[in-house]
């Protein structure tokens, strides 16, 4: 089994409600603050892309279902801050100690924002083995979809695409993948498994997803 976030192909959801092309970027002020505080806290350097995704994916299924998008962000951020030892539960309860935190020197300053956002966090890795497939190769995605090296139902191969047959269409970059250790999920060069995707075909349900 994978986690609650793996909802591609699920039945039972209602219609998609499009918005106007000129709808506000943030519908509520707190949405904007939630995004900004999450990005700013990320700049403290205490977690990476995989850790932050993991934090959202492992919200309790009931929470994941009832939380709006930015509620998920802020709940995951609170969990991350505690898990990574930046804050304590007591801090979150409002009995935080006074005075600067040991990580305060790493806080993102306003003047650094454009540079940090422009820098991004590329996940491409140098080296590693050559792609195992060339375009047109017949491939089959793994089943079950769960990542074999990460416990608890994490996956980067959605369940709807597990076990699917298709044709390899394109190798992109060599990306790192999450590898758990007792204390941190690190980005490491891993066995490189490039794109393996069912070839899109008319009227079917094509998809592209890297198997890991």
């Amino acid at each position, binding site marked *: 089994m994978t986690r609650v*976030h793996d*909802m*591609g192909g*699920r*039945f039972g*959801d*209602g219609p*998609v*409600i*499009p*918005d106007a*092309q000129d709808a506000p*970027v*943030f519908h509520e*002020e*707190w949405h904007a*603050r939630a*995004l900004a*505080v999450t990005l700013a806290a990320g700049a403290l350097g205490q977690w990476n892309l995989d850790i932050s*995704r993991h934090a959202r994916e492992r919200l*309790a299924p009931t*929470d994941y279902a009832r939380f709006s*998008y*930015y*509620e998920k962000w*802020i*709940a995951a951020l*609170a*969990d991350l801050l505690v898990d990574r030892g*930046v*804050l304590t*539960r007591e*801090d*979150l309860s409002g009995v*935080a100690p006074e005075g*600067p935190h040991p*990580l*305060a020197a790493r*806080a*993102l*300053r*306003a003047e650094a924002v454009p540079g940090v*956002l*422009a820098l*991004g966090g*590329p*996940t*491409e890795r140098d080296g590693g083995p050559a792609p195992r497939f060339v375009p047109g190769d017949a491939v089959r995605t793994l089943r079950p979809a769960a990542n074999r090296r990460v416990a608890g139902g994490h996956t*980067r191969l*959605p369940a709807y*695409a597990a076990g699917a047959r298709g044709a390899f269409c*394109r190798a*992109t970059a060599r*990306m790192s993948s999450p590898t758990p250790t007792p204390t941190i999920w690190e980005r490491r060069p891993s066995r490189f498994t490039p794109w393996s995707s069912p070839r*899109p075909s008319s*009227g079917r*349900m*094509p998809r*592209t997803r*890297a198997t890991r």
Partner: protein
Amino acid sequence: MPHDHHDHDHDHHHDDGHAHAHLPPDPALRVKALESILTARGLVDPAALDAIIDTYENRIGPQNGAKVVARAWADPGFRTALLEDATAVVAGMGFYGRQGEHVTVVANSAGTHNMVVCTLCSCYPWPLLGIPPAWYKSDAYRARAVREPRRVLAEFGVTLPEGTAVRVWDSTAEMRYLVLPERPAGTEGWDEDRLAALVTRDSMIGTGLPTAPA
């Protein structure tokens, strides 16, 4: 004696055991509390938050992607390079950055329509399109785009010509997609600025088509 289960499931906080349960339940208050705690400890600079919000409200948005599409319409050599290595090409236009470190551009053609989703999360090419719209992040879109894309398109008012294939690209945290829609007829000789004005956000996600020239 039988247990009385009355009310046990009412107002139950399912996030018990998670650290976030220590924050107020109301979302706006929850964000405010966390921001205040982080600010008090010097971990967050409120001016930096303002700068981040300004960036995504006013500086980075679909107007960036529209410039890429318009140039691809106007310049065949650019289009070829874009489809070959979009990350490098859009970086050359200054559209590189957070949540868009690796980008693939997929081109619509007569007979093929592309559409982008992120079923596992809400991954989206931020430097090209900004922050994703609410519907892109909705359960309904994430669940249904890969199962019944034509029905989803119909909910956006898009009906494709008979026989058109739909390709759905499921984003990963690393790889983000931008749809290159077809250039509308009747735009021969238009410059890039004029073309860019026809490029809608949804046409670059694949849930819409470019605006027809007036």
